[in-house]
């Protein structure tokens, strides 16, 4: 378990005091994938570096499995870091070493005997799907392959925690999903706790269990991915959530829909998890006899199943039955909003 308790990081520059991290408290449970999302400059890079103490906090405490990280000596800290893997946006591989040697370095640092290293490295290369690339240099690899080397290196010493610093931000969408699949796999197979910072909501929705939203050094919202998607409270969270919907601005979508359907009612339905598999809309139409037309739809896949947002139109002829429809949908577990 990773616990941050009232952690702050303050930088002093000649002209001003910067609160990069401002009184942040977070608890990350074992075996979960925890996302920290925020725009650049929100302080999320500093937060992730506080976990392995690449940055030291100005005040507050960082505990990993109950150990106060601040109290460790340099030697103890180095030993602890061996069990905390980290991957980076720009991979940070050594260009002068082959794929094999890059991964081996992590084992060398952990004082693993030379005889045991080869087998371990080959296992890792297999795990990340880079067989045949052992003796290539990083310059001969694509971005996705480089990140796979980074992942193999981070996993070399069987860590309990994997920190991902914008690990997919430098990759194209397809490669991003492949890397996310790999991380998800690793989380399932090895039970490693994964902490990832990102500015891409798709990343959070695809693999995270819980998420914290950061802005100006503070955590402004925290919860399960499902909750955050369904009930974003803070303006910034709403921006992130809407960034995943097909139209970037939800309000824009609303005005255009209202223009297209000046009469009748527009309702927004939120489907999540299991219920998105049932034929709810068809059932409601059959039971109530109301004709409902779908005018805009958007489905995002997430760890807890698909999250669907439907905009539906009910013509004036059925207006008196609106309440019946809404109640029926609510009974099925759909979140309904009449707009």
């Amino acid at each position, binding site marked *: 378990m990773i616990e941050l308790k009232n952690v702050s990081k303050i930088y002093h520059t000649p002209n001003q005091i910067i609160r990069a991290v401002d009184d942040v408290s977070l608890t990350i449970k074992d075996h979960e994938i925890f996302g920290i999302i925020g725009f650049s400059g929100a302080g999320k890079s500093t937060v992730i570096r506080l976990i*392995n103490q*690449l940055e030291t906090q100005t005040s507050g405490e960082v505990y990993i499995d109950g150990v106060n990280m601040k109290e460790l000596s*340099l030697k103890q800290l*180095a*030993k*602890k*870091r*061996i069990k*905390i*893997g*980290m991957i*980076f946006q*720009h991979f*940070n*591989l*050594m*260009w*002068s*070493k082959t794929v094999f040697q890059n991964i081996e*370095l*992590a084992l*060398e*640092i*952990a004082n693993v005997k030379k005889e045991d290293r080869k087998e371990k490295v080959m296992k890792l290369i297999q795990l990340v799907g880079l067989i045949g690339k052992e003796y290539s*240099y*990083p*310059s001969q690899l694509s971005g996705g392959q480089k990140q796979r080397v*980074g992942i193999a*290196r981070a996993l070399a*010493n069987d860590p309990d925690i994997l*920190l991902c610093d914008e690990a997919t931000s430098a990759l194209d969408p397809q490669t991003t999903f492949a890397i996310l699949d790999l991380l998800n796999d690793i989380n399932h197979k090895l039970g490693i706790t994964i902490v990832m910072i990102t500015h891409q909501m798709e990343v959070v929705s695809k693999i995270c269990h819980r998420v914290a939203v950061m802005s100006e050094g503070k955590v402004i919202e925290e919860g399960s991915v499902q909750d955050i998607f369904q009930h974003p409270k803070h303006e910034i969270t709403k921006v992130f959530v809407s960034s995943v919907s097909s139209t970037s601005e939800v309000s824009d979508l609303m005005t255009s829909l209202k223009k297209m359907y000046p009469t009748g009612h527009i309702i927004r339905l939120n489907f999540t998890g299991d219920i998105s598999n049932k034929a709810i809309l068809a059932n409601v139409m059959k039971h109530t006899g109301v004709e409902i037309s779908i005018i805009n739809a958007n489905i995002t896949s997430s760890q807890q199943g698909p999250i669907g947002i439907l905009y539906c139109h009910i013509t004036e002829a059925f207006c008196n039955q609106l309440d019946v429809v809404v109640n029926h949908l609510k009974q099925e577990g759909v979140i309904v909003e009449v707009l």
Partner: protein
Amino acid sequence: MSAKVEQIVKALQETLFMTFASLLFTVIFGIMIGILLYITQSKGLYQCKVINRIVDLIVNILRSIPFIILMILVVPLAKMLTGSLLGAKAAIPSLVIAASPFYARMCIIAFNEVNKGTIEACKAMGASNFEIIYKVLIPESLPALISGVSLTAISLVSYTAMAGAIGSGGLGNLAYLYGSVRRDEVVLFISTILIVIIVFVIQFIGDYIVMKIDKR
């Protein structure tokens, strides 16, 4: 004629000896000073402003003294270390003192070009500062360190020619004696051509090694 050939061969040997013996010490001291400056600079592995400033000042002072003057200043030290005032051996201390700060500067440039992220990644893996220096910093800056060696070696060749003025021997001295004093153009030209060839060979070898090891 054969006496002249003998003299040229001897001078060539002296030049090569002075260049490579002093190069060896220069590289050792230069890298040590370079690492010291790198780790003590702000945001370095062992940030220490005082040491950094002092070493930096010494390096700058030594770099600004013209070699011909430095040589004279170093004479007492050279005598103490080598037991002699004359000959190729006696020239080595002054050559090393002149070239080490030069090479240290190039080491700093090379080290600062190593990707900070790579160093951060190794810290995150649990590497000690010592491991970061010899497992990451040196291998990742090796091409620049090697080009620095060939540049320094070339500077040393021209320094050895000047060292002739304090009686170190070598091709520079020979060219000066025959060319300027005895007006023997043949020896002058041969000495010059030999120096040019030495420089070309050093440059060629340096470039070749850099090309071979640079996998970027």
